[in-house]
């Protein structure tokens, strides 16, 4: 975030505060002797464009991430799931993500799915995320802000999407090559495709030195 961007933001009205739905799962919640909380591993905060919001990650994601020893959280932005509707567009949703990120106990990795990827990308321009994962991004601004604090960025798309303009634009903006997963971009929350996708993300997170 540049100084000029901060000055501009500090002088525009802040989005109306909402009570956000926030779901989290800690490794200790699994009641499994073999799974140890890894204090070195960054926590993970997920969001999605799906109207279910945080609840969408309950089926598989949060538990699966917690199994890897990480604190796993998901947030519903305004209008999703259990979070009331409030005014504000893209910026306000990015604000919701940042507000959720600062309540995570340690510096978090942001994972955004579909429109959630756009919000996460904007949030990463204001909050020094430990990493940024964009899953099948949609409606990402043409020039997303430079992520604060130089986190590594991962772009994961479905096989059907690899050649779309959207994917190309995001890949170019961050200067990275997309990783692909088998299955449909809408079907990432459960099923075999979801497991494969999660494994790919978790092994990327584990390989990343943070």
């Amino acid at each position, binding site marked *: *975030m*540049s*100084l*000029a961007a*901060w*000055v*501009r933001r*500090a*002088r525009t009205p*802040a*989005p109306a*505060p909402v*009570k956000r739905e926030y779901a989290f799962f800690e490794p200790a919640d699994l009641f499994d002797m073999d799974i140890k909380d890894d204090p070195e591993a960054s926590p993970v905060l997920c969001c999605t464009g799906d109207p279910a919001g945080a609840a969408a990650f309950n089926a598989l994601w949060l538990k699966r991430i917690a199994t890897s020893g990480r604190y796993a959280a998901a947030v519903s932005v305004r209008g999703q799931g259990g979070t009331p509707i409030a005014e504000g567009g893209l910026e306000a949703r990015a*604000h919701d993500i*940042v*507000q959720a990120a*600062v*309540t*995570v*106990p*340690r*510096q978090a990795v942001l994972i955004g799915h579909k429109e959630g990827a756009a919000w996460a990308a904007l949030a990463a321009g*204001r*909050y*020094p995320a430990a990493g940024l994962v964009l899953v099948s991004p949609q409606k990402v601004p043409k020039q997303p802000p430079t992520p*604060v*604090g130089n986190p590594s960025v991962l772009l994961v798309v479905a096989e059907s999407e690899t050649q779309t303009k959207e994917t190309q634009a995001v890949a170019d903006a961050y200067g990275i090559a997309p990783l692909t997963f088998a299955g449909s971009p809408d079907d990432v929350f459960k099923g075999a495709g979801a497991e494969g996708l999660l494994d790919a993300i978790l092994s990327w997170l584990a390989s990343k030195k943070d």
Partner: protein
Amino acid sequence: MQEYSSQAAYDRGEAVCVIGAGASGLIAVKNLRENGFEVDCYERDTVLGGLWNPQNQHSPLYPNTHLVTSRSQTEIPDFPMPDDWPDYPSAAQMLTYLTSYAKHFGLSEHIWYGSEISHVEPVDGSRFEVVVKPAAGNAARRLRYAAVIIATGHHWSPNLPSYPGLDQFRGTVLHSSQLKDPSRLRGKHVLVIGGGNSGADIACEAAVNAASCVHSVRRGSRHLPKYLGGEPADYALARLNSRPKFLRRFLTDRLLKGPESLAARMGVTAESRPSEEEPVRNGRYMEHVGDGSIQRRGEVARFDGFDVSFADGTEMRPDLTVLATGYRPKFTSVEPRLLGIEGDSPYPNLYARMFSPRKETLAVAGLVEPGVGVLPIVHWQTHAIAHWLLVRKSDPERAANFRLQVRSESEQDAGEPAGTSPRHRLAVDAEVYLASLGRIIDTLEQEPAK
């Protein structure tokens, strides 16, 4: 710790030493870590949070301390405060905020508590030898660092004025930092000396708790309520800066007309132009003056037995006198010359208000009073310092050019007249200073020629 107590200094290589774990120190540690530096932060006290922590023995907090700048203008740019907090959070919330900042970015593991820096000495070129004196009787340790950032703040060494007869005065005299508990005011006849933010706040506290409150001020000052036009005052005024220039003056005057005429009615007149000094920000003060629970008086002429006489000839017998006379900046470990402190003035003379004029790798964070929140300013300062240390290491030629630029920036700054009170030596116009910081950061962040 035999290896440390020997005369040979332990070399910490490229690591940076940050002195102080208050708000500025924490931000400095985080920004340096983010740019890949090893950091050792030394805190004299045993707790973090600096002035915001009431357990800190040098804490300047007085009863019911709240921020005087609003949340949106005070929060650290990349770590916002929770948006369900009030516009003007309390000192306790500030401490919660700073603690969660430290926890979130894992800063505590880099902080050495109970370690006072007794001496910082430049050695071979640009490095520094730092002598750390632990609180609990161990031998002092000597360490060498590539750079030192001083973030000791300027609100811990009370500024105690001298009045004739104050030494022999038989009543109770406390500095604002010694007050701590509001019950000390209850039922007393209180005299508050000092017209700054702390003076106005304590006078308001005494207005509702004490039997009577006399507020002695030496000179007029500009007062701002905490809200203007339905918005936090600092936000409302800062927002006008994004308006076209020809409208700004008009809009500012319109916004300030109400509070100014109220201040004039209460006999509080400002002696300086608006931009020259930081205003007193208090919404309740004028109302308490208006209902008589605060009586304003002029300067104290002398203390005599149990009585206090004022310059206008009146007298009173206070049960409790509170000196809300502020603080003086104080640097205990560094040779004053390195910070450009000359003569009797305790105020340093720094490049761009953060870089030492003598040593390239010595900087001070947070020694400004910008009239907006200090935390964001410190964030950008330390951001600039971290980038400067990186550039200095990688590209000496750019570093030399940069040094020249900073010097010319500070010369422009020095051309302005100083404020009317010594306190305002640290005051900067936030708009001007941020623009200057922006230019500095832009220069530092430019892609180096490959």
